[in-house]
């Protein structure tokens, strides 16, 4: 059986759109092109109806009310809106402190940095060696001035799942809002805004086999979370987010959410099978380290560091695989990953880290091909590497790799 090259193993960067979703989008573009805010004719009403159906589909996946879902252009905008929106609304009641993690996505970190410039106090909490937040550290960081805790569900680089329910319970107890960036989690792991006490949640379309250019923000109504919007204009999305709501993209996100709701178990089993096979084969090469906790993980993300190899030569050697080193947003610069750094991974191993992402459309043939290729190339590169020789001579590089900061 032949496989199509390059093999796409970069599902955290973006996902292929599900053909069912493409078909639906094309259908809407052809037939239901109204402006959903047109209140005077059938094209507008039809578009609005489609938008509202999608809103229910998104809400259902996280056990929210449809009135709590606001469409945005993507998770980046949602994260900006959630963090700045809460910060600026509650600033007036002397709550000027926000807590987040050093391993958050760039858009969370940079939204916080922007607020810092404006005089807000931001605490960037460290994570443990396994990539997870220490709940005691979090609890101690919360003060009377804290308005928001923003902690992602699934890390985009290393795939670890933060303990959302525990964080949510803690935040509720302490009377602070809990925002979670679920770009990598929504549609992939079970999420329940009530059980997990989530107050705001960022959602992306193109990470769940839906279109790019669309996302959503969940904002809790009871108890009510207030935010200050970042766009002004026509007052669409009940004043939270101005701009014409893009019907076809919203429909795409809605359908992608519905498919994820119906097929989450099936996707999970498929990915688990591929992930296990890949994990076993790659770790058999020895001196390969999985970054982030092995158990608390979304299995569609395996981020490995290969000892005794140069990072860039590894990427070149396996260019039949479309993979990223670090997250896509920062990988263009090829600087060592700040997430791995936060885990205490040393620069050498951080440089050889590669993220392998699997998803709904990854096949077993593709995984087999990837395993064969990686095995062959790792052995070849190591044979050429002086570092590898040193390791073979018993110089314990590993002991210095995992030091804590």
């Amino acid at each position, binding site marked *: 059986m032949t496989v199509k090259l*390059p093999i796409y193993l*970069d599902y955290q*960067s*973006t*996902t292929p*759109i599900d053909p069912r979703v*493409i078909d639906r*989008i*094309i259908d809407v*573009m*052809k037939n239901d*092109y*109204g*402006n959903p*805010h*047109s*209140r*005077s*004719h059938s*094209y*507008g009403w039809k578009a609005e109806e489609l938008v509202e159906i999608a809103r229910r589909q998104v809400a259902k996946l996280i056990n929210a009310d449809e009135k709590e879902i606001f469409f*945005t*252009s*993507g998770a*980046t*905008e949602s*994260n*900006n809106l959630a963090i700045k929106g809460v910060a600026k609304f509650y600033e007036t009641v002397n709550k000027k402190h926000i807590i987040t993690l050093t391993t958050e996505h*760039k*858009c*969370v970190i*940079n939204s916080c940095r*922007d607020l810092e410039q404006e005089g807000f106090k931001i605490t960037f909490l460290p994570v443990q060696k396994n990539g997870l937040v220490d709940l005691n550290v979090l609890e101690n960081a919360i003060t009377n001035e804290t308005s928001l805790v923003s902690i992602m569900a699934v890390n985009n680089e290393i795939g670890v799942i933060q303990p959302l329910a525990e964080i949510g319970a803690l935040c509720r107890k302490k009377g602070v809002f809990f925002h979670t960036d679920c770009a990598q989690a929504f549609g992939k792991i079970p999420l329940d805004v009530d059980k997990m006490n989530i107050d705001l949640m960022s959602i992306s379309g193109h990470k769940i086999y839906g*279109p*790019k*250019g669309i996302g959503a923000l969940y904002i809790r109504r009871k108890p009510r979370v207030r935010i200050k919007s*970042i*766009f*002004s*204009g*026509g*007052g*669409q999305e009940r004043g939270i987010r*101005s*701009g*014409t709501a*893009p*019907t*076809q*993209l919203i429909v795409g996100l809605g359908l992608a959410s519905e498919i994820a709701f119906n097929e989450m178990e099936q996707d999970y089993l498929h990915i688990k099978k591929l992930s296990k096979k890949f994990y076993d084969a790659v770790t058999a090469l020895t001196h390969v380290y999985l970054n982030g906790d092995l158990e608390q993980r979304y299995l569609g993300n395996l981020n490995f560091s290969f000892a005794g190899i140069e990072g860039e030569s590894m*990427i070149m050697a396996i260019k039949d695989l*479309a*993979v*990223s080193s670090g*997250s*896509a*947003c920062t*990988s*263009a*610069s090829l600087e060592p990953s700040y997430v791995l750094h936060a885990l205490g991974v040393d620069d050498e191993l951080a440089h050889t880290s590669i993220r392998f992402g699997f998803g709904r459309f990854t096949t077993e043939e593709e995984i087999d091909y990837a395993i064969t290729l990686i095995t062959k190339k790792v052995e070849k590169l190591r044979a050429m590497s002086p570092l590898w020789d040193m390791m073979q001579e018993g110089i314990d590089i590993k002991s210095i790799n995992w030091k804590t900061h």
Partner: protein
Amino acid sequence: MKPIYLDYNSTTAMSQAVIAKVNEVSQYPFNSSATHSLGRKANGIIDEAKAKINEFLNCKNYEIIFTSSATESTNTIFFGSDFSQIIISNIEHSSVYNCRPPHLKVSEISCAENGVINIDDFIKKIPQNKENFLVSVMACNNETGAIQPVEEIAKITHQNLGLFHCDIVQAVGKIAIDLEKLNVDYASISAHKINGPQGIGALLIRKGLDFRPLIYGGKQQKSKRAGSLNVAGIAGFGEACALAQKNLDDFQKISILRDYLEENLQKITHNNIKIFASNTPRLANTCFYAIPNISNQTQLINFDLNNICVSAGASCSSGTISQSRVLKAMNVANDFLDGAIRVSLSPQTTKNEIDYFIKIFNEFYQRTKK
């Protein structure tokens, strides 16, 4: 019967070529930030779209920053720059009109009865001994279609050391837009008004001018607008620009059908009708009329019952049909304010459709007169 869509200024049907392009690009998981071959291909597609936009708007000296909408583009400039104050016209689209950074003084330029902004009033509003103020005037009004003297406004703005933003959303594809010639500093544009997809727009900014991003995150678009790029939407946008450029001359021919419509409306009402901005250059496809003492709600219900899609003006405001802010700015008499309807035609609109509209309008008008 398929509804007759005469609300082209609100949003447009996507062209077959645009749909095909979106479909084609949607087949691949393109993330332009990825370092592998698909990332490079995504960048190629984006560059191609930029070239088409550049060709269409003559904007090679401008940065093209893709956004989710013209609303976002405008917000980016208004909130992301340190202007000393802002001057807008009182007929701006709500995306500009409601974009008011709280710490800044915003003054409004009045408008004449024909729907064209008052240049004398603009000159009066220019702050004395103050640089770096922002002026924002739309190229064409979305409700009346009146073409605004933006080239002159840009010139006066620059003479007084201000900067000029132009909302070109309704103008592109309908009249020739040359950013170099207009000499604007910033422009906001949306794809879905020119048969492109909803959910994609752009901010055009003269090279060398800087701003603080509205949306922070990854390093996409030189860190000026974070977020994974909507590659399929951008490709569709580029395609729509290329088509709009090709069809620009044909677009002007719509005025024949529009004028035919207006002549008939005048005949039916024995000239007891106001057609706004009819004595000034306006968009070829736009007819904004009002008949006295017959509310637009009643008219809209009747049109809807007869499968005609029109609007009472801008669609995006509060979602309720109310009096048009633009008409109020034009000092339109109260009798007419409640009875205003915007009919906006597309290049696909047929004479049969307009005849049907005239027939329905006539029946309605005779009925209500009794």
